[in-house]
């Protein structure tokens, strides 16, 4: 019984490990981060989560559409209180895995402050089977691996929508009447 449980757990672990298209081996940074996000969602858990998304909410409805063609999503995101916590070696460890014929660099950006961002696509027979996003800024380090086919434009739009800062309470009209009063 115990052996079966161990076998099942190792099987699940192995499945989770191999579902990633490259190793997100950045655990070293986790201990030094002031804020860390570690998401690994694949297979049945991903589909289960999708079932709980509310179609009436525009953001959740957009995510629901994106999830439909996916097998997994893996995110490691770290924020630091000071500069220089991550090193070039951390970046190269990820980047090195993406320098294979399977992956194609789609976008890249680098600035003087040390910011560095790249987007890679994984293609299989001309069909997109994966996405990798690598973003390293002085106080942030992010690696994303999306397994499956995803609409990049829809994902970027979703990011743009999420990125819009919410209005503060004092900026919002408290009542409908206030709008009419101003008029």
């Amino acid at each position: 019984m115990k052996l079966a449980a161990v076998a099942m757990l190792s099987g699940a672990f192995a499945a989770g490990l191999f579902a990633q298209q490259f190793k997100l081996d950045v655990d070293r940074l986790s201990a030094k981060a002031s804020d860390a996000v570690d998401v690994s969602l694949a297979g049945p858990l991903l589909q289960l989560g999708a079932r709980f998304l509310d179609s009436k909410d525009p953001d959740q409805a957009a995510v629901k559409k994106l999830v439909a063609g996916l097998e997994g999503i893996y995110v490691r995101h770290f924020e630091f209180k000071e500069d220089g916590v991550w090193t070039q070696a951390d970046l190269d460890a990820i980047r090195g895995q993406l320098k294979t014929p399977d992956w194609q660099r789609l976008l890249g950006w680098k600035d003087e402050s040390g910011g560095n961002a790249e987007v890679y696509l994984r293609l299989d027979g001309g069909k997109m089977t994966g996405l990798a996003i690598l973003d390293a800024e002085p106080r942030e380090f992010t690696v994303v691996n999306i397994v499956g086919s995803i609409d990049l434009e829809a994902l970027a739009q979703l990011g743009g929508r999420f990125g819009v800062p919410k209005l503060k309470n004092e900026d919002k009209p408290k009542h409908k009447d206030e709008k009419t009063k101003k008029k």
Partner: protein
Amino acid sequence: MQYPEPDWLEQELKSALARKDPPGGFADGVGRKLAGSGPKRARGKVIEWPVRPARRWIAAAAAVVLAVGGAAGYRRYQGEMAKRQMMQAFFIAGSKLNHVQTHVLEVSQ
């Protein structure tokens, strides 16, 4: 032809069949037992018999309801957690992609 009965047999029979008085309070004891145990036995057979299986079924049904409810609750918890993680993951992935696209567009313009 008559056979004379042996004396020892006659004596044995007489002593075995001789009237013996019960010990003191025997009649009262029997009376108490009859009065006390009689109705209990009847109640045990007529009333308790249908109650016990019903209790068993209720207990089994409660256990099934608890197990199913617990599993459904855990599934819901898992789903809600997965949803929250998914929204967070897409928020980060979308923001980063948008961030890169914006910078690349700025540079190209």
